[in-house]
């Protein structure tokens, strides 16, 4: 598989290194010549010292035959431009973008980026797992980025408490697939009565979130 990585920061560097070690063909674009030279010294002649935001250089880097383009610069706007060009000018089957500002996620999705990786969102999710929250947690993006794994922790005031999980009216495009109770995963069945403290895991499209929130979070007490 040929992967074109754009952005030679820490993420791009380690991603390229891991992909090479896994036996993939990889090219890394980094516009800073000094940084590009440092990386080339360490991992060999896979580094192209050009700006991946320019179509001409994306072409030179082999975007026309790339199976995946991963835009992992520290700049959301650049990552969006790179993925859009890869998708629309070079017909790259799969584009992956790093999104630093979680507020940009929906824009990236809307503009056709296949997969969105948000380190900020991941860290936020990890922090929120340990503190009481009244929101849905995004655990991961699935497939081409149109689906997410979502967690809801049932707290006092949740309309789902005391009801069977299978009786909840889950919105179309969303599916509940498990409950974590006392740290143990439990499959959903007709006999699964939801209780305070349960973590309900769902898979769904982002547009299902409001309805899912109504069903599982409701109006928290306090």
């Amino acid at each position, binding site marked *: 598989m*040929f992967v074109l990585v754009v952005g030679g920061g820490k993420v791009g560097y380690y991603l390229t290194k891991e992909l090479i070690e896994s036996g993939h*063909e990889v*090219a890394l674009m980094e516009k800073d010549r000094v940084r590009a030279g440092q990386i080339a010294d360490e991992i060999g*002649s*896979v580094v*192209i010292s050009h700006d991946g935001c320019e179509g001409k250089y994306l072409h*030179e*880097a*082999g975007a026309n*035959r790339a199976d995946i383009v991963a835009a992992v610069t520290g700049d959301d706007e650049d990552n969006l431009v790179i993925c859009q060009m890869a998708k629309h000018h070079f017909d790259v089957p799969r584009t992956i973008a790093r999104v630093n500002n979680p507020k940009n996620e929906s824009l990236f999705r809307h503009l056709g980026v296949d997969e969105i990786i948000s380190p900020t969102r991941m860290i936020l999710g990890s922090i929120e797992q340990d503190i009481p929250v009244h929101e849905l947690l995004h655990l991961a993006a699935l497939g081409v980025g149109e689906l997410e794994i979502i967690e809801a922790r049932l707290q006092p005031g949740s309309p789902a408490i005391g009801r069977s999980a299978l009786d909840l009216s889950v919105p179309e495009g969303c599916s509940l697939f498990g409950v974590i109770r006392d740290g143990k995963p439990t499959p959903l069945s007709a006999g699964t009565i939801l209780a305070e403290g349960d973590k309900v895991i769902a898979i769904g499209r982002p547009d299902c979130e409001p309805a899912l929130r109504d069903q599982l979070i409701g109006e928290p007490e306090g």
Partner: protein
Amino acid sequence: MADSSAPQFRRAVIALSGGRTDRSIVALASEQARPDHAELIGVHVVEIDWTLPLDADVAGRSEDAQRVLDIAEATAEAHRYKLDTVLLQARDVGAAIVDEATERDADLIICGLPFRRRFGGDFAIGATIPYILKNAPCAVWVIREAMPEEQA
């Protein structure tokens, strides 16, 4: 002190660029290899840009690439010496030459360097020779051609 009876080298990789220095470096290598019957390997690298996969059939179809090897072999023959030739495809010439020398356990790389100036007048050494000098595990001889008379 260096042992004067030790061979200068036992296996040398000659980097053939297809340029005007190829004949002179093959001739020199042939003469230097003769006393110790050292092995000479002429390597020409066809650089493949990233728009093509590395295994695209480019070098095999290239008459120019074959001609580079033929001229080098003929030059060695004219000096009554045998030169094995290798045609490679790579993303980067310098890295390919160093890798080939390492794989073949060569103890010398010989490169030719044409005398060129950049726009503005500075001497242009290019990227390949510095890469080889920096990364080759073995000795490297760089033979720079003479400065043209009008520039001397």
